[in-house]
């Protein structure tokens, strides 16, 4: 069941479009904002709200990389693995985080605090290496900065 708040926000999005199905991506993002990810259950709820089939919603949901169809930790670390960051050494940074949290790309730490994912170019190439934690950007990363950041997000 979608929360009232979610339904309200989705209905708000629907208003700017010619028909409700257009709000599919917005709806998925709204649900994910509230729940961290989009479950099968949520796919069905969204489908019902927009008057389309589960298949239609899931076809869209599974296409986009920033819609999570599996549960994630409380914080999502997105490490840029594209070419400029590679040149500037994202790989050792990744290894550092990975070792520290005991998880590889795709994993969630046992305490549920972090999920570690790769992301393609963050548009921060002149300040590489870069990453995001949740909605926050960080660049010119070093091991020290990482240590500090991992402390900051609970």
């Amino acid at each position: 069941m979608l929360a009232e708040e979610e339904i309200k926000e989705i209905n708000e999005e629907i208003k700017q479009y010619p028909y409700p199905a257009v709000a599919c991506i917005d709806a998925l993002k709204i649900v994910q904002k509230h729940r961290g990810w989009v479950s099968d259950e949520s796919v069905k709820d969204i489908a019902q709200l927009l008057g389309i089939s589960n298949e239609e919603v899931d076809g869209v949901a599974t296409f986009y990389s920033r819609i999570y169809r599996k549960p994630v930790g409380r914080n999502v670390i997105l490490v840029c693995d594209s070419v400029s960051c590679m040149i500037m050494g994202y790989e050792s940074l990744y290894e550092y985080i990975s070792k520290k949290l005991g998880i590889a790309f795709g994993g969630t730490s046992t305490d549920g605090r972090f999920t570690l994912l790769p992301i393609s170019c963050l548009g921060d190439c002149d300040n590489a290496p870069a990453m995001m934690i949740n909605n926050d950007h960080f660049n010119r990363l070093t091991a020290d900065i990482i240590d500090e950041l991992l402390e900051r997000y609970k």
Partner: protein
Amino acid sequence: MSLEVNMVKIRIDGKYFEAKPEKNLLETCLSIGIDIPHFCFHPALGSVGACRLCAVKKFRDKDDTKGRIVMSCMEPVTEGLMISVEDPEVKAFRTSVLESLMTNHPHDCPVCDEGGECHLQDMTVMTGHNYRRYDFPKRTYNNQELGPFINHEMNRCIQCYRCVRFYRDYAGGKDLNVFASRNHVYFGRHEDGTLENEFSGNLVEVCPTGVFTDKTLKKHFTRKWDLTNAPSVCVHCSVGCNTIVSERYGSIRRIMSRYNGAVNGYFICDRGRFGYEFLNDEKRIKSVQIRSKKADSLQIIENEQLFTSLNNSELNSKKIVGIGSPRASLESNFALMSLVGKENFYHGISEREYSLTKTISGFFQHSGALIASLKQIEKADAILVLGEDLTNTAPMIALAIRQAARNVPNQEAKKKGIQLWNDAPVRELAQDSKSPVFIATLFKDSLDDVAEVTFHSSSEDIANLGFDIVSGLNNITTDSKTGKKDHQELAGKIAQILKNAKNPLIISGISSGDKAILHAAINIVTSLESVGSGVMMSMVLPDCNSMGLALLPGKSFQDLFILEESHRIDALIVLENDLYRRADEESVNKLFEKCDRVVVLDQLMNKTTQKADILLPAATFAESEGTIVNNEGRAQRFYKAVGNKTQVQESWRWIGELISNRDNNQTDKWNLLDDITESMAIELPLFSKLRKYSPDADFRMLNMKMPRQTIRYSGRTAINANISVSEAKLPQDPDSPLAFSMEGQNENPPSSMVPFYWTPGWNSVQAMYNYLDELDGRMKGGDPGLRLFEQSTGSKRDSLEYNNQKSEVRKNELKIVPVYQIFGSEELSAVSPSIIERIHEPFVFLNPKDSEFFHLSDEESVILEILNIKLNVKVKIENSIVPGQAGLSVNLPGMPYVDIPGTGKFHKL
């Protein structure tokens, strides 16, 4: 291709051809017979340019030697177009496409159901991809459980997107889609579960590989090349889609669609495809049986014994009665009529069905109205459906309407210079705009999503709406039949739109059982014609040969009950008909009590066969040859796929033998199908056309019959070695030019005689291209079947009476209207195991208000009493049915006959 105005000249590998500019280059080449490999293009679905296999070289002009690669499916045909299919660079590119498609393919052809008729295999050979260079692990997927019809094996997928384009875009299905992206795209459902769409079976043919295969075939799998095939016609509704029936080891293995440009095109519905399994039912009647007086049970006897035991005087008697059947062939019904005499021949259908069907057949015969074929339905630009739940009573008409709904937006696309084969842009431009389709039915239908307006109401309101449309067309504004302002406004709007349309179409039928609805529909057609409209009409009938039967003389079944009240009947002969599905049990029982001898010809045991004194094993469509007439009056012939080895034979042949026997073998009645056709032609002028409509039994191609088996048919000499080591004699088929053999002549057979599709290089169903004049067009030599009614203009007609009394419904009662189900309401298909899985228990649709009033909840079992008949049914709360009216599922297995519409009341359990 025939020369037409507006043709353009194009050059393909140095040769010049005339081509139609509204076609794309790929269709053009395929129509000419130039093989261009392709996957994502399908003639019914148009082009999307996804697979990139149909690449050709295009040259700017004569001096351009380099050229550039273009996709032929996306290339408009224009004057002076110069292309090469054979250019080495583009050939190499096509091979590369195949190579990369095969990188992840499981190479499991030996165990794949598609093997031997696989488009992917054909394309692999055609492009010349032989050796793998990819040496990494393959991607794999999990499969889904998709219900009783379709098997899923995703690893074989080559991502051509045809499945979703057919299922979603063409057939309006919602529960199949593509998921994920890149080389992980997945075609399936959101989660395991039955594919809901009524046309899901076409995935089997649309999918070019073995991802979606026929699950019923899997249970008794046979390779295409080992099948014995016959051109046939579907017997599961009145539309008459053309099919191919295939046999091995005496049992039927599958049904595929058979192309008919005027009827079903490339597709058939799931009832038609999967309903065949009744043919293999254990309870099939395979031998002659006679009731022994002592044991009061049926005993198997030899044919000869039959004739000695049948008393000739019985058959000579005046007190002999024959009951025909709308699911038996024209020939069998005619034979019975000949045996018993016209005055003793009864149409084995209810009074209601009889009179409504007669209204339609009479109108069709005498009005000269334009009766739409399925193909013509697809061309309509404004449609009114009056009272017919098409998805359940004539599924393929529903599918055709879905296509017609695109016609108006298509005109917009044309104006913007977008060619109609360019599928995606046409849809993107159209968005959700559609041709005007108005659906006035008793409750919702899965076709509703294409409707501009749906009008779900009582049958009275639907008829009234119809009559108001008539008034609107005749500019009479005063006498609204609905009495409701909004209904009248809607009627006015519909009238206006129908009047302004170029090819309006009115569809109705008799499933609502409501005469007023039918009359309204006919009057709309008449009124439109009187204002010069090119209106088309289509009427849905209940059974595959309802129309054929209606065209024969004969009385209604009901007349029999009245007429014979005090008479006894010496012999009652029932032709392929379970009378308990036609009238209430009491009346039928009484009838049987009056008969001294009951002879029943049928295929499956039912309540009627249990009453037989003599039971004759009648051949099904798969074991016989005959003609049925579809709802548009198209006579179509089916051919046998199984050679008779048992006592089973065509009903007309049984009856012919009875006649010969009665006449002490003075006459040799109807040795061949052609003989009975001749008799019919002589006796009933309407059928005189049938003489020439398909090749006679002695038709030969290059002095040979046409083979039912492919050249690679295996095991002919050994197939019965477990029974006898000597090679069995091949079954004979004196009635048709088809042979039970792999030998013969199969190139370019007459269009009605195509038992399977195969041409060099094409083992898949795509081989059918070579049997067509042009893709999506007619079959070479004209589409099979013969229309019995001619369109004529100017014939003046009177309108039919308006007589729509409000049915009297007392308090605590409801008006009960019939609800048909694609799976379950048709007698024969309902016996097939896969269909059984899709059949609901008997149910009643109830508006929430009524359910509240009667204190009934959803899914609750309840007794519904109609005319003293008590039915145990499940309540289904249904918003779309109006209060005061309830919808009762009809004809589901185990349900007795009830004469509805009528009134009924509930008793709590």
